């Protein structure tokens, strides 16, 4: 059986939900080996919380990861891939994961597919392109099949994992140490679910006029993450990390609620693949209604509090 590598996706020192999704996709193609890359002393705790169909773990601890970033991660992965020759390597599709994948592809003479939303047993990847309007099936024809997979698109098998663990010592090549990271400020995670992992996202745009209370109220009643349009992040009403769209995050939740957002193509690029789309907008002509499963033409400050009340009433 062929061997498939996945890169364990971490948020800080915690294993993200996406990791089990990568393992689930990988297990369709072969036996899954999870690669853990972390600071000295941290891998055992990470390995103990892994879930999903993972047969073995290769764990490398290095000081250089935090100091040199993406090139250091890519360098270590390239070394193991060259040595162990897996058939495929799956990585989470975000800025960090895609850059690592790109560098490993160059180092190992392999093809690369990014932003896959599904992967079949024969390695065929499904991608949704042009703002979700077109489905593409493609396959890598050279080297290791390096694919990045969008969080929240594959239903994860989260059975407990009991992998064999191999701790490996490797050093980062000099060429991967040309950048020095002098300070790191991780974004503080609020109490709400992570945007790209959430089952429900409630987003606010310019229509909130800077007051996100109604949007947050509905989000909390639904157990949802909060998103924002670029108009809202540019105005400083909500942090950039919450921006959904072309230059923000791509989300694929079960439910996306767009409030006071017009539906510019750059916003749609980040949310169009949501399963169900609900819209609250006072302009009946707003283009966002074109992709809405359910739309309320109305003032969000009137509609959202009523909806929040209704959700809470049904839940209790």
């Amino acid at each position, binding site marked *: 059986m062929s061997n498939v590598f996945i890169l364990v996706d971490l948020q800080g020192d915690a294993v993200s939900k996406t990791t089990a999704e990568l393992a689930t996709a990988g297990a369709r193609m072969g036996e899954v080996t999870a690669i853990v890359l972390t600071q000295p002393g941290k891998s055992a705790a990470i390995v103990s919380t892994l879930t999903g169909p993972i047969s073995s773990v290769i764990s490398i601890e290095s000081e250089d990861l935090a100091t040199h970033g993406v*090139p250091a991660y890519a360098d270590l992965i390239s070394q193991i891939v060259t040595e162990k020759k897996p058939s495929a390597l799956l990585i989470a599709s975000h800025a960090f994961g895609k*850059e690592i994948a*790109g*560098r490993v592809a160059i180092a190992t003479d392999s093809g*690369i597919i990014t932003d896959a939303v599904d992967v079949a047993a024969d390695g065929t990847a499904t991608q949704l392109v042009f703002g979700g309007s077109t489905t593409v099936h493609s396959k890598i024809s050279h080297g290791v099949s390096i694919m990045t997979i969008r969080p929240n698109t594959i239903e994860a098998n989260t059975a407990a994992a009991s992998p064999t663990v191999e701790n490996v010592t490797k050093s980062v090549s000099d060429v991967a140490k040309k950048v020095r*990271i002098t300070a790191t*400020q991780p974004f503080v995670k609020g109490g709400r679910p992570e945007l790209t992992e959430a089952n429900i996202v409630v987003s606010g745009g310019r229509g909130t006029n800077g007051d996100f209370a109604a949007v947050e109220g509905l989000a909390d009643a639904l157990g949802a993450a909060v998103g924002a349009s670029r108009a809202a992040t540019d105005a400083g009403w909500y942090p950039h990390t919450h921006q959904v769209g072309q230059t923000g995050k791509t989300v694929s939740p079960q439910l996306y609620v767009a409030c006071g957002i017009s539906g510019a193509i750059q916003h749609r690029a980040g949310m169009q693949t949501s399963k169900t789309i609900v819209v609250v907008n006072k302009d009946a002509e707003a283009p966002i209604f074109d992709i809405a499963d359910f739309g309320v033409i109305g003032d969000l400050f009137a509609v959202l509090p009523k909806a929040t009340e*209704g959700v809470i009433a049904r839940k209790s």
Partner: protein
Amino acid sequence: MKIAVCVKQVPDSWAEKKMINGTLDREGVDAVLNDLDEYAVEEALRIVEAHGGNEEGGANSVTIISMGPERATEAIRKALSMGANDAILISDGALAGADAITTSAVLAKVIETGGFDLVLCGTESTDARMSVVPAMISARLGWAQLTFAGSVVVDPAASTVAITRVTDAGVDSMGASFPAVLSVIEKINEPRYPSFKGIMASKKKTIDVRDCAAIGISVQGAWSLVADSAPRPARAAGIKVTDSGDGGKELVDFLAGKKLI
């Protein structure tokens, strides 16, 4: 300081795009300079302007590098009219449908021989959206990778560059010595509109068009092959209600009907 800016001509974001034989149909749509590359052009100009400008014959220059069909010269002219000095376009029939692996090989090959200190890119192209080419160029050249920059500070005397990297995870401060490959996010600046003078001047600027033989590269086929592609069914028209006091309640009823709550 010699700066290169990699730009791409892409279909207009608003144009309806379709696939023909596994690649994007580029003939049938309006083409423009990739939005996100304008920020890289602007940042390169700001860097040289902060250090004596980019007058012809001076110490600094900004060179636009692009790979694409001959008509990509239109997008390149826009970058030149913003104030870049000159341009190189690699154009070759063999490059049609090139993937990121090939694109990065071609760009790296041209950059390698140009004597550049810095290479600036946008974070992604609005058509392919892979966001990997800057990292790949850095990997191929063995140059420092400073990508997703939300701010850039260059010290030409020390030959160093420092950025803040802004991603999902947080903000990192990082730096490196020349040469380096940067990509800049769209919050970094507000790209200038070409002035009338800039547009007139751009007409006299050189766009050096080269084919693969001229840059000494032989093209391989793409390493990711499209098996098939199909337009997805348009989202069926949904329900639309006008709020007259119970829009919120109707919204909740819809969610309940869909078993979303």
